[in-house]
């Protein structure tokens, strides 16, 4: 409840900042982005994020699943190395590299973002599936479930909370990183920020940054709710009980 209140206050603050800098219209010689341009940039931003995230999910979950299988267990240390190193590579560099490889524009931005944000999903899918209680897994096998049945009926449902947390982290990361995509001409709120940076106009930077932050907060909250809904009821009860007993 209190958390929601803080969230609403924060969002209202960011919205008023955006409204205010848009309202002032011009600073000296320079025009601020007019409302319709801001809205178009916001829509572009959301589109970039959604497409990149969809790719990251479509690639990340199967990859994490594959790595969690016993026959691929040798890949697991390599994965954790890639994830920890991968996360330290600056988005800027990644976007730069892909723009050189694939050219400027939307396509290379989306590819760069997907590559960057797939990592938390792979890592959490892997962690979720491998953290299933060994005894639960053995009970499944012992009762005569095939490996595929064990995976779909037992391991996967139990991994849902962690997988959803991975998607949430990845999405928030995506919203922020998508701002960098503006640098290579992919559009979105990043373009307004970049213009503001090159013109040394704090107002204009804010005009792009405030809605970006608001978007991240909003999506984070939305995905938290979806994550809770997607978690099987019995598992939710078990987690709550575990917390209470601690």
């Amino acid at each position, binding site marked *: 409840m209190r958390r929601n209140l803080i969230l609403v206050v924060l969002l209202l603050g960011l919205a008023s900042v955006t409204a205010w800098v848009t309202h002032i219209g011009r600073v000296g010689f320079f025009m601020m982005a007019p409302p319709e341009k801001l809205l178009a940039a916001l829509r572009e931003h959301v589109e970039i994020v959604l497409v990149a995230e969809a790719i990251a999910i479509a690639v990340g979950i199967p990859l994490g699943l594959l790595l969690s299988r016993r026959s691929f267990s040798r890949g697991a240390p390599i994965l954790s190395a890639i994830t920890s190193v991968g996360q330290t590579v600056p988005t800027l560099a990644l976007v730069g590299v892909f723009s050189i490889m694939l050219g400027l524009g939307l396509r290379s931005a989306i590819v760069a973002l997907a590559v960057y944000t797939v990592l938390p999903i792979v890592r959490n899918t892997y962690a979720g599936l491998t953290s299933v*209680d060994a*005894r*639960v897994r*053995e*009970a*499944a*096998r*012992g*009762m*005569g*479930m*095939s490996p595929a*049945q064990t995976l779909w009926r*037992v391991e996967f*449902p*139990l991994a849902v909370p962690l997988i959803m947390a991975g998607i949430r982290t990845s999405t928030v990361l995506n919203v922020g990183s998508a701002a960098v995509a503006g640098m290579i001409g992919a559009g979105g709120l990043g373009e307004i920020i970049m213009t503001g940076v090159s013109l040394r106009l704090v107002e204009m930077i804010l005009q792009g940054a405030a809605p970006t932050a608001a978007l991240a907060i909003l999506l984070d909250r939305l995905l938290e709710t979806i994550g809770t809904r997607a978690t*099987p*009821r*019995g*598992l939710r*009860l*078990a987690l*709550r*009980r575990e917390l209470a007993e601690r």
Partner: protein
Amino acid sequence: MIELRSVTKVFPGGARAVDNVSLQIHQGEFCVLLGPSGCGKTTTLKMINRLVPLTAGEIHVGDRDIRSLRVTDLRRRIGYAIQEVGLFPHMTVAQNIAIVPRLLGWPAARRRARAHDLLELLGLTPADDYLRRYPAELSGGQRQRVGVARALGADPAILLMDEPFGAIDPITRERLQDEFLRIQNEIRKTVVFVTHDIHEAIKLGDRVALMRDGRLVQHAPPAQLLSQPADDFVRGFVGTDRTLKSLRLTAVRDVMGASPARARIGDTLVAAREAMDKLGKTVLPVADDEDTFVGWISRTVATGSGLVGARVIPYLVLGSPGMPLNEALALMLESATGQLAIVDDERRLVGLVTFETLFERVRRPPEPPSASEVQP
């Protein structure tokens, strides 16, 4: 029903977990695998449903080599119960119990009916109430019951149980053991049950296979394990109080003897004294005209003249024929006379247990079959 022939398991790395174990478990038998942790009992159990592959030897289940069956088919024919954490937390009780039936393709209505019946069998009533619950909404003891119900899901002939009552408090465990014995008397499954608890082994097993360092040390009915330990290890494992433990294996009816001599409330005290002298006893039970037990008469109170009825020492405790001897002993210690009157449902005197009876039983251990007659 289950036969292990020279079964050996060597884990990668060279650890010899099970070493040349041969074991026959008959249909309807309750076999307990007992031993300290690391003795190979769980590994032995898991080799039966191929959760652990054999290194050498053979295992036959109902005349078929377990390797000749598809592994999932084999496991679906064998009930498997482990400690309560083995329940699937995201599934309801009904779904948990119906796992094997579902794997076998039973229609939904039949699965539900089966889950309902099993909950009733295990005393989780009203069953409809429990079907919809999740494991997190149950107590430890209830989860344990659901675990047993799940193992019985598709009505397998064989049950493998790996310390199924391990993780619960002693009182609940005792009750679950009693209930499981009652159920087993009804359904007569072939059970292989792993435990490290000697009390549990003695209470539940028709025969107990005691293991140490991967080897089978002694495979015998509980009474024999207690009275004739094969070596010092067995003697040490069953404990110095093995005599007391063995009392639990005998029911009062097996030792109480024929209908005991008694005084009647209408007898004269003189007659009672004469009877005691003749029998060489200092205490006699007293019955009324309908043969109902009313108390005791002893030499100390049977003085002077009059009728027995006026001097009866009231009884404090009563025994029943189905009671195990350890409970009878506890009651005797509370009895006014140091003896325990055994009465039937109408409180008619049917027998007597004295310290002499117990001494005799301890010196001359019971024949194995009597063990199964103990009613918890």
